[in-house]
């Protein structure tokens, strides 16, 4: 478990679809690839405020995702 976590890095997480970072369309594409690869799942818990992320940045990101990404997967 610890070994698996240590192997992860930012680029790897984004590339594998395990971190959703980017503009709305980029995230939609990344999500769809991941969903197809694992044959779907039910619930995504989004880590929206990491480390020093400001509340304003987290809020903007969360709103944008809700308005521009979420509807495509409901």
């Amino acid at each position, binding site marked *: *478990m*610890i070994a*698996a*976590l*240590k192997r*992860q*890095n*930012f680029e790897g*997480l984004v590339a*594998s*679809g*395990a*971190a*959703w*970072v*980017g*503009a*709305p369309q*980029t*995230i939609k594409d990344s999500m769809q*690839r*991941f*969903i*197809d*690869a*694992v*044959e*779907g*799942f*039910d*619930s*995504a*818990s*989004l*880590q*929206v*405020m*990491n*480390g*020093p*992320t*400001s*509340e304003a*940045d*987290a*809020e*903007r*990101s*969360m*709103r*944008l*995702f*809700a*308005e*521009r*990404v*979420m509807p495509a*997967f*409901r």
Partner: protein
Amino acid sequence: MEFGFNFFPDVSPQVKSGQQYFREALNLVELGERYGYTHVRTVEHYFQPYGGYSPNPAVFLAAAAQRTRTMRLVTGAVLPVFNNPLKLAGELGMLDAMSNGRLDIGVARAFLPHEFAAFGVPMDESRERFEEGFAALRVLLSTENTSFTGQFHHCHHITSLPRPVQQPHPPFWVAALATEESFYRAGSNGYNLMAIPLSGAVMRPLLQTYRQAYRAAGHPGQGKVMLAFHMYCAPTDREAHDTTRLGHCSIPTCSGWSRLRQTGTRRLPKTTRATPR
């Protein structure tokens, strides 16, 4: 498919105080419900920036319950190994009551050596303590006037109070580690599944194992799978990547862990020296 928030606090006092972190997190929770997010989840960890602001998920979730009306409240996850099951069952019963039955209970085995060391629990008892603690939690939540005798805990004619709103008990989710066996066991026992997303190629056979085991054991439906993702959305890719890469937004699964290792190895001798002789 549904979306919610994961508040895995990846912060130290130098970055954000607990006061600031929880004020901001609760603001986001309240707003998020209006934007269609349907659950809020937090972790149980200790003593380090990697999750350590949340030693008891029920405390944060109880506050979140009072800022929301419909969101599910998810422990992601509680660690029976570090809790007395009598205490844990009572606290989770309170949370289910205070939220009008919106609690989802995720449980996990725990894996960080510094936590086992701090609590004086041998890591090689991790499996037995998890199995026993989780079994005790299930029976305490679902049965009145119950008794059990285990290797680590026992009780005699106990009724955990308050009784859960959701009967026979709130839904259970089991956090699977990276092994196929953990996915198989979660499925064959009929629990929902929590996991950290690995690459699709690794994840796909693990989820297949879970779903097949779930169906083969005759449980209704196919079991639910919840995965936690880092997410940062901005108007452009460049803006999103700049914000995350420059460290304004780190990822607990990697950066938090590397910081944990750095600070962990440096702090330990200092603490030892500071102890009065």
